[in-house]
């Protein structure tokens, strides 16, 4: 029970629920802009989950200075690898969001509508 009352578990739960909300937004909303917002929420949630996995109990940031000496760095810092990957992921997330929004603008110009139901060329 005690492992459930820690910062990393609460952060992971938050990220998980944020992912669920994002997926729900993607599959249930009809407005194209709301769907893009759902994608960006999913992105944020996934990043929070990955960073919470990198946290080691009672650790500090992986920066070596007066607070963390080089000799005892390995016992004091959090895992730097997932943090570096999330850094990459956030920047790519912005690129993907900009791409989706440009596509939304383009679609809007064709039909003058933001409803997903009016784009039924690929309906199955």
């Amino acid at each position: 029970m005690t492992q459930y009352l820690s910062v990393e578990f609460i952060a992971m739960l938050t990220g998980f629920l944020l992912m669920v909300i994002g997926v729900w937004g993607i599959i249930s909303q009809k407005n194209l802009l709301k769907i893009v917002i759902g994608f960006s929420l999913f992105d944020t949630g996934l990043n929070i989950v990955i960073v919470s996995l990198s946290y080691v109990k009672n650790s500090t940031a992986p920066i070596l200075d007066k607070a963390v000496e080089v000799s005892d760095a390995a016992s004091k810092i959090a895992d730097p690898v997932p943090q570096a990957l999330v850094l990459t992921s956030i920047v790519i997330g912005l690129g993907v969001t900009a791409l989706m929004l440009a596509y939304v603008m383009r679609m809007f110009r064709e039909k003058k509508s933001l409803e997903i139901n009016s784009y039924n060329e690929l309906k199955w």
Partner: protein
Amino acid sequence: MSIILAIFLGLVILILAFAAIYHKNIKVAIIASGAVGLFASVLYLLLAAPDVALTEASIGSGLSTIIFFYVLNKIRQSND
């Protein structure tokens, strides 16, 4: 102490995410999704990741909100 702060941040993030999905006014929804990024960056700081927090605050909540508003403005302009 940090656990209480983390619980508070988690609740705020989830409420804002619901607002971003369900609010009728699209402007409020975009602001809410930007605020999710802002509170998530504080959560990253609690998880000992200041690099990620800086990235999320400047890119996730700053620039992406601006791009959303650009597109919204463009769509409103060509509507009337």
